[in-house]
Structure formats: structure tokens, C-alpha cells
């Protein structure tokens, strides 16, 4: 069975079926949406079971020629990095779908259908082995997100949607030019036209070409992440989108950029990556500090989490760009952590916003009294988000900081600021909403208390956090080979000593 292709086909079919369901039949729409995402989770678990941990290369490849004269093919597979992202995507989309189904907006079938289409884009992108196919899914993901913002967003949705689309399009079309240029240079070297990443990987690009092509790709990735200063669309889009969409964008769409960097940017253009190491690392560091400061001063909870995401993604980019095995493995782990934590944080924002009718922190307070269970969940998520030792995010951040420190100590020092700030803004969010005197209506707390429907969304996320916190090795080991291979060429270029002790094994032994 072409399981990996099924990952893309199942939600696509479900989305098409959903679009054709009459609007009145909301129950049927819910059933189809949940069945579609649920089935996708099942397929992703099959892929995980069949996954061979011993190999760092792309595996379970489904290859069908598409446009042979141009060298474009349908080529999907998974490697150690994408397997976790695939699983994260399918699980988060199922939870997002559950949340969306509980409070279905008007024309719910279209809403759910578009969500499924964005899942198609993400899953395709995380599994593409062909550059053009990668681009196809990259763009495929944009349309549903844009429609979701534009149709179901807040008051300022038009501007938000427009800004989001224009920002991303500029990046992606430049990436398209870079993709074509890459393949044309590779064709001269290989003697045949191809867009397969694994074929292009061995091609030696000249220094200038490598730098320019890397820059062309990174622009698109940086906008999607977003990396400072390409984050102009973030407050608008995150602020205006329906919160389920915001959560999925922050948790998963941002990973598309990181994944591209790790899967295409660094391995294909090690020279260029090495040349641009310092500039990109500086942008990431600015992002960490700037994002943290913005999060600290944010008025609404949604923007606070959104800006914190900017800071966290800075960490991840830094972890990849220093070309250190430990840092890179930390970055991969942190991709998963951030996805889970930020989704949980947005879920809590959603529940608070729904119960009280506002996401403005100044107007909330003392909710813990009426909602003790929510408070507990919130506290756990807060601790994970500020990377308290023992939490899942701590493992990832520790790996990144340790790896960065042994390459560029000064970067680690600046990045540390982000860790400290994280405690400040996350605790501010928790304290101002949960503790202190009650504001607004007296009984507000009880309205926000966790109900069964909310628990179905939140509890799995918290369980995953514990799972990663307790057994990070399970995750790191499966992806270690692929990660090492991704940064190995860049390490050679940068003249890094290849450290033989698997850092994952060394580090996890001391951790709980």
C-alpha cells in the first residue's frame, strides 16, 4: 500500500466530500471531518510502525512520474525528521477538528473542508521528495488558510488575509525561481533534468550560486516561520484568524519553514548556509529577544502566545544554523515540543475567550477560583512553555543551548535571555488571568471551567508533553540519523569536528 500517499489522499477525499454535503446537515459534516482526520491519524501510525529507525534517508517512497520532460515527479516518503512532523500534524488536526466541531461557525462544512485541505498541504509538504512537489504543497497550504482568515476571521480579516497572502507569495515565488535555477544547474552536472532532492543533494554548487540559491529558499522559509524582520503578517493573521486556525498555523505552518531549512536549505547548499550562518543566526537572536519583549507587552493572550512563538522559532532556527549535532537534534525535538505546547496554549486561550467573551488580559482575573481544573491544565502548559526543567520543552531547549554554546558561546548567552523572558511573560499571562482579584462578572470562572469537550482536546496534548518529557530518547533517536545527515555537509564546510558520542544518549541519561 502506498501509505505515505494515502496520508495526502485521505484528507483530500474527505475535504471534497465535505464540500459537497448540504449546509444544513451539520451532524454529517462533523462525522465526515472527524472520520477523515481520524483515518489520517491511523495511516500516520501505520507509517510510523513501518518506519525503519536505522536509516537516515527518505524511506517508504511512492514514486510516480508526473511531467517527465521537465523531470517533475510525484515523490513522497518519510525520514526521521518528517515522521514526527507528520504525526504531529495528523494528531493536532484531529484535536483541532474536535475543537472546531464543538463550536461550528456558520457554513461549517466549508470551514471543516478548508481545514482538511490545509492538512493536505502540510502533510504533502512534510513528505515531498521532489522540489516542485514541495512547492506545490507549499502553495496548496496557503489557499485554505487565506480563505479561512478571509471568511471566518475577525473584523480586520480582509487586511489580515491580504497581508498574509502577499507576504507569503513574494517569498514563495522567489523560491520557485530558486527551485528552477537549482534544477537547471543540477541538470548540467547530472546530465538529466530532475527535481528530486536526493538526486540534487550530491551536486556541488559554486560558492556564489550556493549562497544565492540558499538565500532564495531561505526568504520563503523566513517569511513562513516567521523570522524577524519578516513577521509583519503575524500579528494580523494570528490575531484575526479563527483561533483553531491560529493554533494550527502557529503549531504546524511555522514548522514548514523550519522543515524546509533542515530538509532543503542546509543539505543542498552547505556552502551558502555557512556563508549566511552569522546573518541568519543574528536574525534568529533578534527574533528571540524581540518576540519575547513583544509577548511581554502584548495586550491579548492570543498575541502573547503568537509572539512567544516568534521567540521559540528563533531558538529552533538557531539550533539548526549553528551546524551542531546536538543543537540540531534539539531543534528537531523542539519543533515537536513547540507544536504541542503552542497548540495547548491556544486551546486554553480559546477556552478562556469563549467563557469570558474576551481575550484581553487586563479584563480577566481570578478565574482559578471558579475553574480549578482549567487552572491546573493552564499551569502545566505554562511550565512547559517556559521550559521548566522536567518539562518536555526543557529537553529541547537544553540541547539547543548546549549545542550553540559549544560553537558560539556569545549566541548562547543572548539566547538565554529568551529563556528568562519566557518565564516572565508566561507567568504574567497565568497570573493576570488566574490569580488575583476577580474582574468582570463574578461568576466568570465557572463558565470557563474545563468541560468534557475541552478536556478531549487538552488532555491528549498534556499527555504528549509528559510523554516527550519522560522519554525524549524515543523521539530523538528516531530522528538523529536524518538530522545528522542533514547538517553533515554543512559541518564539513564549516570545519566542525564531528563529535562521535551521540549527544542524545549522553544528555538524556542525566534527565528524568
Amino acid at each position, binding site marked *: 500500500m502506498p501509505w505515505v500517499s494515502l496520508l495526502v489522499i485521505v484528507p483530500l477525499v474527505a475535504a471534497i466530500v465535505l464540500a459537497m454535503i448540504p449546509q444544513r446537515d451539520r451532524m454529517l459534516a462533523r462525522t465526515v471531518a472527524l472520520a477523515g482526520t481520524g483515518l489520517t491519524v491511523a495511516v500516520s501510525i501505520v507509517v510510523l510502525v513501518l518506519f525503519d529507525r536505522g536509516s537516515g534517508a527518505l524511506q517508504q517512497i511512492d514514486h510516480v512520474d*508526473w*511531467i*517527465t*520532460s*521537465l523531470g517533475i515527479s510525484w515523490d513522497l516518503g518519510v525520514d526521521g525528521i518528517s515522521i514526527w512532523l507528520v504525526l504531529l500534524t495528523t494528531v493536532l488536526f484531529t484535536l483541532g477538528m474536535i475543537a472546531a466541531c464543538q463550536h461550528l461557525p*456558520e*457554513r461549517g462544512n*466549508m470551514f471543516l473542508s478548508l481545514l482538511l485541505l490545509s492538512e493536505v498541504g502540510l502533510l504533502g509538504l512534510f513528505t515531498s521528495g521532489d522540489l*516542485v512537489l514541495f*512547492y*506545490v504543497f507549499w*502553495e*496548496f497550504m*496557503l*489557499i485554505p488558510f*487565506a*480563505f479561512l482568515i*478571509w*471568511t471566518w476571521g475577525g473584523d480586520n480579516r480582509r487586511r489580515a*488575509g*491580504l497581508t498574509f*497572502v*502577499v507576504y507569503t*507569495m*513574494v517569498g514563495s*515565488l*522567489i523560491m*520557485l*525561481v530558486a527551485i*528552477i*535555477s537549482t534544477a*537547471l544547474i543540477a541538470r548540467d552536472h547530472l546530465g538529466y533534468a530532475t527535481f528530486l532532492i536526493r538526486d540534487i543533494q550530491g551536486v556541488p554548487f559554486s560558492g556564489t550560486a550556493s549562497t544565492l540559491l540558499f538565500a532564495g529558499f531561505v526568504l520563503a522559509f523566513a517569511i513562513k516561520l516567521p523570522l524577524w524582520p519578516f513577521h509583519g503578517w503575524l500579528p494580523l493573521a494570528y490575531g484575526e484568524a479563527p483561533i483553531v486556525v491560529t493554533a494550527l498555523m502557529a503549531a504546524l505552518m511555522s514548522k514548514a519553514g523550519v522543515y524546509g531549512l533542515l530538509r532543503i536549505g542546509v543539505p543542498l547548499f552547505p556552502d551558502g548556509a555557512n556563508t549566511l550562518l552569522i546573518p541568519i543566526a543574528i536574525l534568529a537572536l533578534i527574533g528571540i529577544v524581540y518576540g519575547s519583549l513583544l509577548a511581554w507587552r502584548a495586550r491579548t493572550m492570543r498575541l502573547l502566545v503568537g509572539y512567544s512563538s516568534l521567540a521559540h522559532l528563533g531558538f529552533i532556527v538557531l539550533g539548526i544554523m549553528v551546524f551542531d549535532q546536538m543543537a540540531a537534534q534539539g531543534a528537531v525535538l523542539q519543533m515537536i515540543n513547540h507544536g504541542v505546547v503552542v497548540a495547548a496554549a491556544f486551546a486554553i486561550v480559546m477556552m478562556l475567550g469563549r467563557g469570558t467573551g474576551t481575550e484581553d488580559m487586563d479584563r480577566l482575573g481570578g478565574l482559578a477560583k471558579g475553574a480549578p481544573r482549567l487552572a491546573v491544565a493552564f499551569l502545566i502548559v505554562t511550565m512547559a512553555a517556559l521550559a521548566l526543567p522536567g518539562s518536555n520543552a526543557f529537553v529541547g531547549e537544553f540541547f539547543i543551548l548546549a549545542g550553540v554554546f559549544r560553537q558560539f558561546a556569545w549566541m548562547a548567552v543572548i539566547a538565554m535571555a529568551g529563556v528568562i523572558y519566557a518565564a516572565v511573560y508566561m507567568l504574567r499571562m497565568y497570573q493576570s488571568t488566574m490569580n488575583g482579584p476577580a474582574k468582570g462578572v463574578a461568576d466568570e470562572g465557572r463558565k470557563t471551567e474545563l468541560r468534557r469537550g475541552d478536556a478531549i482536546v487538552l488532555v491528549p496534548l498534556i499527555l504528549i508533553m509528559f510523554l516527550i518529557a519522560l522519554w525524549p530518547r524515543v523521539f530523538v533517536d528516531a530522528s538523529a540519523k536524518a538530522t545528522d545527515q542533514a547538517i553533515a555537509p554543512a559541518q564539513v564546510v564549516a570545519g566542525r569536528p564531528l563529535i562521535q558520542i551521540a549527544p542524545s544518549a549522553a544528555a538524556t541519561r542525566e534527565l528524568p
Partner: protein
Amino acid sequence: MNVVVGIPLYVMSAAALLAIVSGAFTLPGDLRRLPEWIGLLGVGITLITLIAMWDRPQSGFAGEIRLTHMSMLMSGIILVATLATIALSWGEPAGAGRRGEYIGLILAAATGMMLTVVAGDLIVMFIGIELLSVSLYILCAIEVTRERSLESGLKYLITGAIGTAILIYGFALLYGMTGSTSLNVIGERLAEAGPLTSQPLLVSAMALVAVALGFKASAVPFHMWTPDVYEGAPTPITTFMSTGTKTAAMGAFLLVFTGAAQGAIADWRVLIGAISAASMVVGNIGALRQTSVKRMLAWSSVAQAGYLLMGVAVGTAFGAEALIYYLIAYLAMTLAAFAIVILREREVEDGDQLDAFTGYGRRRPWAGVVMTLAMLSLAGFPPLAGFIGKFMLFSAAIDSDMLWLAIVGALASAVSVVYYLRVSIVMWSPAPVRDVPERTLRVPRPVAAVAVTGGVAIIALAIWAQPVIDLCRDAGASLLP
């Protein structure tokens, strides 16, 4: 003398004449649609003839008419556009009292377009361009009781006449330089004559021809007539102009520049590249603020001319291949988009305005889907036909060291997404449909058929791109010796 080569042209001319003649009689109710049927039959037979002749490229009339793979494929594109135009005109109020002339002129214009792309000689090409232009002047103004339609025809006539003058001047210079009007001979002279190239006279000849053909293709800076003429003309005729005329103009560009003037490529490459870049930028920016979908599509057609001209600017067989593929894709998306506009125009007054489409997708979901597909494809979103076309054009540009052109194209496309997406978003927006249809004409089945066929083709051309690309490859290869 090989007379077989002219069969497609004979059939088309005969159909045009028959249709016009049929208009002279008052037809009884059963035969009311006789002109349309003559048109469909004529185009159908011509298409079949071309398919039958595909494996036997040939030339005749002393090389003045050449049926190469390129000219046959482009004639095919023109014929499909004609077929669709006749279908879109089904029940069209424009020219209601004079169906014979209306259909006859469409067929005459199509004959002119075909003559332009099969031309092996500058004179034949000129006659083709004139035939198509004159027929279209009249067609634009055929709604004699509507001021905008007359204005449209007049504007097209005046600018078109200037274009013609420039074209003949350019051809004359070319003849003066090479001593022949035959494209083959011109090609040979330019190829062997190193000293001819870079001469001011040749450069001006190339510039004049580029300008004149740019008029027909509505490329910047000769695009000014496009929005007004497109808006004023009856919408089926607008559709015909933006598909058929564009195909003919691109065919002429390919024949004169990529084909005949291949030897002087250094003289015109940057020129065409600049026209292409300017069209992409100006067209896309111009479309941004339009409130009429028809006007927006007119500006978009300017931008699309820019993308297409990339395929000429590179001057390679691959460029021609990419251009022709994009023309096919462009045909599908333009037909789909205009079919939906026509549909809406039949239903409400001012149906071409953007706000007439508010919430339209909720009332007619299939129309909404088709329009969305057309817009996404025009914007170049994968995995649709427009994307594959742009991809090939960008590849051709980068492959011929015109990276700058590809980058301009990429940035211009990013701008275009704004207005294309706006239409599709408006279609699905929750606001209610503006009002009760004022002119509740029934949706004519042929219009719906064109829309749906276009929508299906947008997807099919991308998924099964390879067979189509193979055809385009043959066509591109036949252009160069």
C-alpha cells in the same frame, strides 16, 4: 502547387461567407440558429482536418502558407477559442437582429487569426492580421444601440489602425534589409549575414514589428486601449479577443522573432524582454484597483501577455514550447472566467461588477468552483494549468540566462494574487447575493458547458500535462530549422 495545405482556410472562409449570407434571409423559427450551426460545423470540420493533417506537416503556395506543427497547434487553439465564442454567444443580446453577420464576422476573424499563424510570408501575415482586426472592429461595435459598445469599436479601430501602420512600416524595413518577404528567406539572410545584424535599420525594423504586434497582444506600452475596448465590447467578443487575438499575435511574434530573426537574436532579445517585464508589472498593478471583473480581466490580459512574451524573449525552441503550453492553459482559464461573467451578466444588470458576484458561489456552487479555479490558475497557484505554464516560462527564461526576467515575473505574480484571490473570496463571502435577478434569462446550456469544460481543463491540463507538453514540444521544435 500544393492546394491541400489551404483546406483549413478554405473551409473557414466558406463557413464565414455562408453564415453572412444566411443572415440575409429571414429564417423561420426552426432555422433561427442556422448561422450558429454553420459556424460550429465549419469550425468542427476544420479542426478534424487539422487533426488528420497533423502527421504530415507541409507547405504550399510557394511557401507562403506553412502547416507546421506549430501553426497547426496554434490554429487548433484559435479554433477552440472560436468554438467557445460561438457557444458563449448563444442567446447573447448583442447582435440579436443580425446573427448572420455576427457569426460570420467571428468566423472571418478566426480565419484571419489562422492566416496569421500559418503565414510563411510577411504579406500573408499582414493580410491575416488585417482580416482579424477589421472583423473585430465591427464585432466590438455590433451592439449599435449601446454607447459603450460603439465607443469600444471606435477606440479599437483608431489604435488598431496605428498598429497596422507601424506594422507595415516594420515589414517594409525588414524587406528592404533582406530583399524578401518570405520568412524563410529572411531567416537565411539574417543567419548568414553577420554585418546585417546590429545595424540601426534592422534594429528599428525589429522594434517597429514588436510595437505593432504588441498592440495586438495588448503588451505594455501599447496596451492603453485594452481596458476600455474589453469593457465595452460584448463579453463573448472580449473573450474571443483575449484568447484568439492573443494566440494569433503570439504566433506572429514566434514566427518573426524566434523563427525568422533567430540570427539577429542579440538585437531584439532585450527589447522583447523589456516589453515582457513592463507588461507583467503594469498589467498586474493596473488590475489591482478595478471594480469591474471585465476590466480587471483586461488588465490581467495585459499581464498575461507579459508572461507569454517571456517565451518569445528567450528565443529558443523551449521558449516557444512553454509559450504554446501557456496559451493552451490561458485559453482554458480565460474561457472559464469569462463564461461565468457572461452568466452573471445575463442575470443582472451590470453583472460584470465585482459586487454583483458577492455570494454568487453560494447560489451556484458549480459556477463558484469554476471561477475560483480560473482565478487560482491565472494567479499561478499549483497544481493547476496556469502554474505549469508559468513554471515552464520561468524555466525557459532562467535557462537562457534571463534570470532577471523570471524574478520580475515572480514578483509581479505575487502582486497579481491580490486581485485574483479577491474575486474568488468575494464569490464565497457570506454577504447575500445583491438582489433578485433583474433580467432572468435562463442560463443557456452552451455557456454553462464552456464554463465547466474550462474548469475541468484547468485541472486536467496540469495532471496530464505530459501529453500536452509533448504536442507543444513538437510545435516548438518545428519553429526552428
